[in-house]
Structures are given as structure tokens and as C-alpha cells.
């Protein structure tokens, strides 16, 4: 276990040193969040009573989403894994006495945690001090705890799916195509573009139980206060189930793939 913690540490430290990236993403998150809020404001002004989420819930949802944006990205650069597969430096990863699946899992987590550590505070601080109408609200302690648990699970589900995508890259010459497909699917169905409750009822019923909802929508809805505590616990349970399924599939495929891997040249 210690080695995975060391791995996480070295990757997080590594990620913390890129200042320009941090500033760029803070600015873009803030601008994006504001834009989305204004769009929803326009919608709510036309008929505020007909929506499933109140405007204030939507605002909290959006700010928290922007603060944790990178944490919930299935398709994030994960540069070292992509290059390891593309240029064959995976050879070195295989001569280390640790399970590749586990070490990649940790790496992917670290890749998302370190930029989030840099981003989330500035975005949240701004979100807490803008004009009251557009301000983020802070939920009661219990909700906050449930939100934290659910966020960690969401990150794990995100990473487990990202790893499935990385494993598929062993079979393709270029990762580009699959990344585009996965980006579109996950952003849309996880509530990354519009919160899931805004989906039409019959669609929502299906989307809610898909793994994508576990990757972003569950913690954000808990935070925004839209769901009851009971519903929150159910959501967390569903997250656990998807996490187990995705990890088991990932480990199985990884073992199968590694026995056929071909490292060319050099």
C-alpha cells in the first residue's frame, strides 16, 4: 500500500508545478461557470416555477462543478499512460514489481487531484463572493459529508472508466477516435453539460442508472441539495456498484491484454 501512496504523492507534487496551466484553467472555469449561470438565469426568468431544480440549486451545482471540473474528466491528458502505450515505454512499467492496473489507477487519480487542488479554491472563493443571486450556498454538515464521500467515489469511477479507455488503446493505432467518443458520451450523460434533472423524465430514468451519472451528477446533486439524504445514500450505493463492476472489468481486461502486448523497436 505504501508504494501506491508514494506514487500518488510524487504524481501530485509533479502536477502542482505547472503555474500557467493552473491560472489558465481557473480563468476558464470561472468564465464558463458564469456563462452557464447566465444561461440558466435566462431560462428561469421565462418560467421559474416549472423547473425541477430551483435557480439557487442550479447555481450551486454549476459552481461546484466548475471547481471540481478536472476531477470528473474521464478523458484527461494522462500523458504518461498514453505515451507509455504509444511509444512502448510501457516496457519499463512492466519491469516494476507492482500491478500495472493499480499503479495506473493511482496515477490517473493523481493527475486529476493535483490540478483540482490548484483550481478549486480560487473558483470557490470567487463563487462565494459574487452578487448574492449568483452565489454558491453551503449545505448542512451531513450533506457536506455525503458529498465528500460521493465525490471520492465519483473520482474512482471516473478513473476506472478512464483505465478501460486506456486499455482499449492497446488495440488501436491512435487514441484520438476513442477519446472523442468517450468525451462526448461521458460529458453529456454525467450531467457535465446540463444537470441531469433537466433531462426529460423517460430519458432521465435510464440515464440515472448508467455509470455516467455516478461520475459527476451524484455528488453535485447531493451538494446542491436537490436530493434527500435517503436518495443520496442510494446514489452512493449505486456508485459503489459501478465502481466494483468497472474495476473488475478493467483488471480482467488488463491481464488479458498484457499477455498479448507487443512492444516494438528499441
Amino acid at each position: 500500500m505504501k508504494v501506491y501512496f508514494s506514487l500518488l504523492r510524487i504524481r501530485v507534487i509533479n502536477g502542482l508545478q505547472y503555474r500557467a496551466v493552473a491560472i489558465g484553467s481557473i480563468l476558464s472555469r470561472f468564465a464558463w461557470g458564469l456563462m452557464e449561470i447566465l444561461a440558466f438565469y435566462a431560462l428561469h426568468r421565462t418560467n421559474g416555477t416549472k423547473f425541477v431544480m430551483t435557480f439557487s440549486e442550479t447555481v450551486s451545482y454549476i459552481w461546484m462543478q466548475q471547481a471540481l471540473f478536472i476531477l470528473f474528466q474521464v478523458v484527461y491528458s494522462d500523458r504518461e499512460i498514453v505515451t507509455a502505450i504509444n511509444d512502448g515505454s510501457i516496457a519499463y512499467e512492466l519491469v516494476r514489481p507492482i500491478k500495472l492496473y493499480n499503479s495506473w489507477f493511482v496515477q490517473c487519480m493523481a493527475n486529476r487531484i493535483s490540478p483540482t487542488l490548484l483550481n478549486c479554491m480560487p473558483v470557490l472563493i470567487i463563487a462565494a463572493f459574487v452578487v448574492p443571486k449568483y452565489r454558491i450556498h453551503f449545505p448542512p454538515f451531513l450533506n457536506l459529508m455525503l458529498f465528500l464521500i460521493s465525490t471520492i467515489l465519483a473520482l474512482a469511477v471516473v478513473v476506472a472508466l478512464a483505465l478501460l479507455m486506456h486499455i482499449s488503446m492497446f488495440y488501436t493505432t491512435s487514441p484520438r477516435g476513442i477519446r472523442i467518443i468517450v468525451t462526448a458520451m461521458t460529458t453529456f450523460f454525467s450531467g457535465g453539460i446540463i444537470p441531469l434533472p433537466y433531462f426529460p423524465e423517460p430519458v432521465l430514468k435510464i440515464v440515472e442508472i448508467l455509470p455516467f451519472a455516478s461520475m459527476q451528477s451524484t455528488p453535485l446533486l447531493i451538494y446542491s441539495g436537490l436530493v434527500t439524504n435517503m436518495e443520496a445514500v442510494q446514489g452512493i450505493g449505486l456508485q459503489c456498484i459501478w465502481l466494483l463492476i468497472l474495476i473488475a472489468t478493467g483488471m480482467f481486461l488488463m491481464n488479458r491484454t498484457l499477455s498479448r502486448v507487443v512492444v516494438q523497436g528499441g
Partner: protein
Amino acid sequence: MIEFQNITKMYRVVKRQAGFGNAVKALFSREYETIHALNNVSFQVADGEIVGYIGPNGAGKSTTIKIMCGILTPDSGNCIVNGRNPWRERTAYVREIGVVFGQRSKLWWDVPIIDSFELFRDMYKIETKVYKKNLEELSTLLDLGELLKTPARNLSLGQRMRCEIAASLLHDPKVLFLDEPTIGLDAVSKIAVRKFIKKINKEHGTTVIITTHDMQDIEALTERVLLIGRGKILLDGNIEELKRRTSTEKRIDIKFVGAPPAICAGMKCQEIKQNQMRISLDPHILSVPDAIAYFAAHTGLTDISVSDISTEEMVAALYKEYDI
């Protein structure tokens, strides 16, 4: 130490004709070609040996090393290194081997070397005492000192290679695999690396397998050489023996003033410049002293040197002989 038994490994390669039409066609159906990277290869290596593994590009050298490291799974055959099967017991097995791929880096790119080393310490579960002792020994021998605090991206190739080699030895491996460890290094670094490998082999009894295209590596390090070509072991033996086997020819370089000498039986002129000449001599027909006497008598000789053909040329001759 190493048992490599009847290993076969094939690759499937996509074939496509040039051009737009064929590229579109390949979207729907692909043709594959099977390449035998290794064809029923067997050999053994004893404990504490240094074995050089040579062969032209694409001969199967790297495939062999990667199978021995547990990276690739062969299609058939068995391999036991240090009492274990590399690909079936990968994680347990790699704890006891060290690997350096000259063309790749295992150090984390943007953190100081020492951070990478400490991560290896945790990864290989090296005891603190052993780690400290090894780190000290390796930093002295490889002159790491200040380098340890520098991120890998800021090191020169030679400096980085020294760190890579140190990293692969932190956990006292019993076998060390070196895949082109001196590629791209300058003369000083090359010599330092060779010296170090020799020393480690002598003092720790580490078995070393080295692949290289640099024949001076082979000459400086190894007693035993395996020649591989087209997926088969073609030769297995001592480097001096190989030299004798391939050629007994001597090379004579002369400098002279005046007219170039006439060539007599047993000599072949290989190159002639203004007042220099390179001759290959078959000592069975004309002995070396006789040849020198001949030049002294017939030419305005100013300088003469006699040498064996170089390992480089010997290997080229071997590749030619086996048509690989």
C-alpha cells in the same frame, strides 16, 4: 541462472499498399503478415556470466530481452530465470532483476532523481539500511553527487544513463539486463559505464545480459557472445574464437614516399591514397615478417602497422556469412 528453452514468438503486422484507395480499403479489411521474431530459440546462461547478445536490427535481440524481463509472453516455449517464469510470475520475478533500456527512461521526468529513487525504494520494498548503503556505493561509483537533486529532464544523456543504471541496481538484482546501454553516449561516459558494469559483475556476482551494436562494448565486457539473426541463434562462443573462426586475415597499413609498391601473392590491396595504402594479408600464403620485409625492400617505406581486423568488421563479415 537463465534457461531459455525452445522459445518462439511471432508478430502479426498489417500490410497495406501505398495510396489513397488502399488506405480506404484497409478501413474495411486488413491483410496481415506473420513475422517470426524468434524461432525455437534455446540457450543457457550460468550464474555470474556476462553475455553479449548481438545481431543486426530486427534480428530478435530486444524480443529476447523483453521475454526474459517478463514484458512479452512468447507463443511457445519456456523460460526460467533465477528459478522463476518471467511472464507468469511477473511481479515477484521483476523484484530480483534490474533492467536498463538505453532508448527509454524509467526516471520520472520532472522530479529530482532522488525522488524517483525513493519511489523505487518503496516499490521494491528495499530496507532503509540496504537502500542507504547501495545509494552511497552507487553514487560514489557512478559519480552521481549533485545529479541526485536535479530533475531528470535537466540532465544530459550521459548523466541520465548513469542515473538509470544506478536506479536499476538499487535493489541488489541478481540479473541485470542491459538493452543498448551505451547508445548515444560520448566516449568518456561509455568507458565509465563499461567499467562500472564490469565492477558490479565482479564484486556482486551479478549476471549481466547486454545487447548492443557497439562492438567495443562487447570487447570490453563480454567473454561470451550470442549471435542472433532471423530469429535464430547462429553462433554461441568466445569473442576471440569468433574472430579466429571468421578470419585469419591481417591488415597492414603502410605509408611510403615515391611509387606505390607492387602487390605480391597473398596480399590484396583494399585502399590506396596518395602515399598510403591498406592491404589485407593472408598469413597462410605470406607470413607477416615476410610481408614487412617485402615492403621494406621494395618501397620508400616511412611507416607500417599490422593489426587484426576489427570486431566491427568481423561482425559485418559474420552478418554477411549468415546472410542476415
